[in-house]
């Protein structure tokens, strides 16, 4: 079933609106991530789609039918809550059966469908237990089974992985994606974790301050962010401010660097480069420095975090961060060394600064 959200808005009383003029749409079977910092309106958006919060403006359609005014219990959407919201006084099987009972499904069919839903999430054996007797990961599987068993038109996931520990989170993430693709169910996934969103979503909507910042595939969001906020939110990045010095040249302090896009000479510009796209070369080995941009600097700090080494280099009138995978980092840099930073023009993002005058 496809889902369409048109210029959706929510305003609570006199406060600034939580969500403003938000539009996006999902094809049947698509997994869309709503990504943004806390308080950006992503959960409010999800709640408006489910009907738990009423929209102050805009329209929500499911499979062409307008559901904006429909109460939650008539919307046929499966919702998985951050706290799982399992009914503590019912057994696991009763929890999963609840939605089917509401739909007046015959008893024997309920039993069959509950069993197959529990099998889908690999929980065949815990049907008679109470939710509090299960681990966090198991509770989450029950919540997923309960949301899926009603064969919802839309599946809504509200930060489903945030209460799990890191290892379990990765497994569960892939499992959710696997089930979602097998059942080909249109899904909206709310998260504040960009890795999570990029790993499983077909497309991502990045929100900030109640507004849509950018919509696109994970690759588009990461490689060609539309705003500095998006670039900053989806991964570590260096920020440097400079001035356009030519068609595709920017002056940063003393140096001139080549960038991906073009701008108007003289305008101020924000330059952003991801730390792992920069290569570090020793100052006395300039023959290794073959790149669009080669900038000298002094190494100030090295941080070892296992799979990468993080360098802080004083260059371009500030500190530039460089990440290097440890398996390529046998070159032996030391703090205080003079180094060269090398990176491609294509990896240099630019954002024109809007000056008030």
């Amino acid at each position: 079933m496809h889902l369409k959200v048109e210029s959706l808005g929510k305003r609570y009383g006199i406060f600034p609106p939580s969500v403003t003029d938000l539009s996006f749409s999902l094809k049947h079977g698509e997994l869309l991530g709503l990504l943004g910092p806390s308080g950006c309106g992503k959960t409010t958006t999800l709640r408006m789609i489910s009907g738990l919060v009423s929209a102050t403006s805009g329209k929500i359609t499911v499979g062409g039918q307008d559901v904006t005014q429909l109460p939650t219990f008539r919307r046929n959407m499966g919702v998985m809550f951050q706290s799982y919201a399992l009914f503590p006084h019912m057994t696991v099987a009763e929890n999963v059966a609840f939605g089917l009972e509401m739909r007046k499904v015959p008893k024997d069919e309920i039993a069959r469908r509950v069993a197959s839903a529990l099998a889908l999430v690999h929980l065949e054996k815990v049907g008679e237990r109470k939710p509090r007797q299960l681990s966090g990961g198991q509770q989450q599987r029950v919540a997923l089974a309960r949301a899926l068993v009603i064969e919802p038109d839309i599946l809504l996931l509200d930060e489903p992985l945030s209460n799990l520990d890191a290892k379990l989170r990765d497994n569960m993430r892939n499992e959710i994606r696997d089930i979602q693709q097998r059942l080909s169910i249109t899904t909206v996934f709310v998260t504040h974790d960009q890795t999570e969103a990029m790993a499983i979503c077909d497309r991502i909507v990045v929100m900030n301050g109640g507004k849509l910042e950018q919509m696109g595939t994970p690759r588009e969001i990461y490689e060609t962010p539309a705003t500095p906020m998006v670039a900053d939110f989806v991964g570590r990045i260096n920020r440097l401010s400079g001035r356009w010095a030519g068609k595709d040249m920017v002056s940063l302090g003393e140096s001139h660097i080549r960038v991906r896009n073009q701008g108007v000479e003289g305008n101020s510009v924000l330059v952003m480069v991801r730390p792992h796209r920069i290569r570090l070369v020793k100052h006395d080995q300039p023959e290794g420095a073959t790149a669009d941009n080669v900038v000298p600097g002094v190494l100030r700090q090295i941080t070892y975090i296992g799979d990468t080494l993080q360098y802080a280099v004083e260059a371009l009138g500030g500190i530039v961060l460089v990440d290097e995978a440890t398996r390529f980092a046998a070159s032996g840099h030391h703090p205080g060394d003079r180094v060269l930073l090398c990176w491609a023009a294509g990896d240099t993002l630019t954002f024109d600064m809007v000056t008030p005058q």
Partner: protein
Amino acid sequence: MNDTPARGVEEKAGPGSSLLLTLLLPIIIVNIIAFVMPVANLAAMSFREAASTGSLSDVVSLKVWASLLEDSYYWSIAWRTIWLGVLITIITLILSYPIALFASRAERGRAVLIVLCISPLLLSAVVRTYGWMVILGEQGFLPALIRQVGFTPPRLINNEVGVVIGMTEILMPYMILSLLSGFGKLDVTLEQAAETLGANRFTVLRRIVLPLSLPGILLGSLLCFVLAVSSFITPKMLAGGRVALLATEIYDQAIVTLNWPLAACLSVLILTVFGAALLFYGQLTKIIE
């Protein structure tokens, strides 16, 4: 830290339990002097006899108990007490539940609402009962209003109706407080989850809210039943001596007739009713667990 669980227990049982005992000692002493001893004394008294002057004989006998158990009058009092207690509890519960639910959900003024709900406790039950006498009395406000509308008012005072009305109002604050303590555990997302699964408002109330607030309901019911059975001022004033209950009968026997052994007997009987109520409560709590 502890290698074996046994060692851990031992360590805990050492200084911890003596501290616990020290802290509990004052209340244990107070309870023995002010509760256990008087009740034992009362039970002992029920096995003695009283002369018409009120003086107690030193003979130990089962005569008073025998006369009590044989007399159908006392059985009828006991049944009326229990039946009215249950009725008052049920009506109090039905009237208090929506108020408590509303107060616990109120986004603004929640504290004010709760204070309003329990503010009647600031007034003595005697004063409130006088208020009901003015409202319900033959020439009172409510009968006058009913007469104005053109109906013959039913008798609202000096009978069981008056007792039920008065007791219900007196007990509602206790019920509301108990229910509120139970609603604390009720998570709104559970109701939202039920809604997303296709439950309408009424089904959410029946399948989610009510079952989850059962502990509060049971606690409030126990409290109100015990208070309803043991209260004697309100029944005495609103029944005008025409509805005999265990508590009022104890008062009459002890203060008016000066038959202390019989009063003691009835007191033990009322304690038995409380004990039964407590057992019943315990069983129900176990079932819903």
